[in-house]
């Protein structure tokens, strides 16, 4: 593997795992720079059925009730071009996409 490609561990919510037909955590190959956008691009390229479910089509805006966490930090309001911590880029920690705990019926 080239030095410019990183293996990033990713966790996504239950319903999206069902949609993508994956179980538990999985790994993605992400080219440098390892940003939120780069991880989501790689995720949608690998699992196109998730397009539009995490960020909106065209605008690529994060869906309101989904949050992005890395190394116990909430990055949801950071720029998509924010560099992710080394622990994410090196695969020591997973990048978490989490459904907001928002009650409902």
């Amino acid at each position: 593997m080239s030095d410019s490609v990183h293996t990033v561990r990713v966790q996504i919510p239950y319903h999206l795992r069902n949609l993508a037909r994956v179980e538990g955590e999985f790994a993605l190959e992400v080219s440098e720079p390892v940003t939120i956008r780069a991880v989501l691009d790689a995720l949608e390229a690998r699992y196109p059925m998730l397009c539009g479910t995490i960020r909106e089509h065209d605008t690529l805006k994060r869906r309101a009730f989904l949050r992005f966490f890395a190394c116990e930090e909430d990055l949801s309001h950071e720029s998509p071009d924010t560099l992710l911590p080394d622990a994410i880029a090196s695969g020591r920690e997973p990048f978490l996409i989490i459904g907001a705990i928002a009650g409902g019926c």
Partner: protein
Amino acid sequence: MSKVRVLVGTRKGAFILSSDGKRDNWDVSGPFFAGWEIYHMKGSPVNPERVYVSQTSGWFGQLFQASDDGGKTWYQPGVKTENAGAPQWPPVKSNRFVYDASNETGKPLTTHQWYDGTQHPWEFKRVWHVEPSLTDPNTVYAGVEDAAIFRSTDGGANWSEMPGLRGHGTGPQWQPGAGGMCLHTIILDPKNPDRIFIAISAAGAFRTDDGGKTWKPINKGLRSQFIPDQDAEVGHCVHHVAMNPDRPNTLFMQKHWDVMRSDDAGDNWTEISGNLPTDFGFVIDVNSNEPETVYVVPIKSDSEHFPLDGKLRVYRSKSGGNEWEELAKGLPEKDCYVNVLRDAMAVDKLDKCGVYFGTTGGQVYVSPDGGDNWKAIVHDLPAVLSVEVQTIP
């Protein structure tokens, strides 16, 4: 012997109820898409094995699903199911509902009236209703919130707005009902392929006679007490519209309050509430064999969305309205405080017309004899959002 397949969308998944023509013994399958809101599902009249589904979530937005085997297996149009885990490109667009604001084909993305009277930009929220073409199994229409109509000609893989409706000059006067500004009814005219009827809460009913390029409001005769101008062209809270395909110029409407009919394709409406105990409600449908036999489920009021006196009742008119009879046999006699939502009634096409409806309490009722006798097929589903029925030869 013919079979029937009842497609039930609920707050927490989809279910399919199947029976033979007697409609006495039922098989129940599901939940499909467990945990997701299924606003509507409907089969193609051309190919009944093709079924389309609107699947939504407050977290993950809109998805669109289809089946080519009558609901045994499902796929997202555009996803290569043979190797779903492998990298694929281009991205799936079966859930891409983007208003067409292009200079070439679209209409400017304008505003509509918000609850407080201010103007609010159009924002896509979900698909309320899917309507497969009467002639092509790969063509399907979608009615969405905020109100607009989309069309796919490739089995749901790609969607294009028909922007003439949203771009109608009255758009800034449209406003959301309590459930949102949804386009909830799409009726395709079986005798005129260029004619489509739609209805929006709370804008009213519209019709195109040129395949969707232009639309006209068809609300003349509707009276809504909350509208200062009683002759307003738009602003009426139409809950549902129904047609018997043999008589496409005759339409029946359950408005917020008032049950209405039109015999000139919506150009003029007259009230037919007659002796109904209350004319508030959501559903309305027409017997498939008797075009003057109409069904409604009266709901107490717009403040109390449940049946009168805790008794669930269907009312039937065999005279096209005004004279209504109470249908009670097999329905709850007391302590019933459910609602029946606007897309949750359907009729089959068998000789003795079957009538079906679902409740927010999770029951789906069937009458195999045009309303005389009722029976619950299921009692304990999640809240039912929609009911459609396929009659399969």
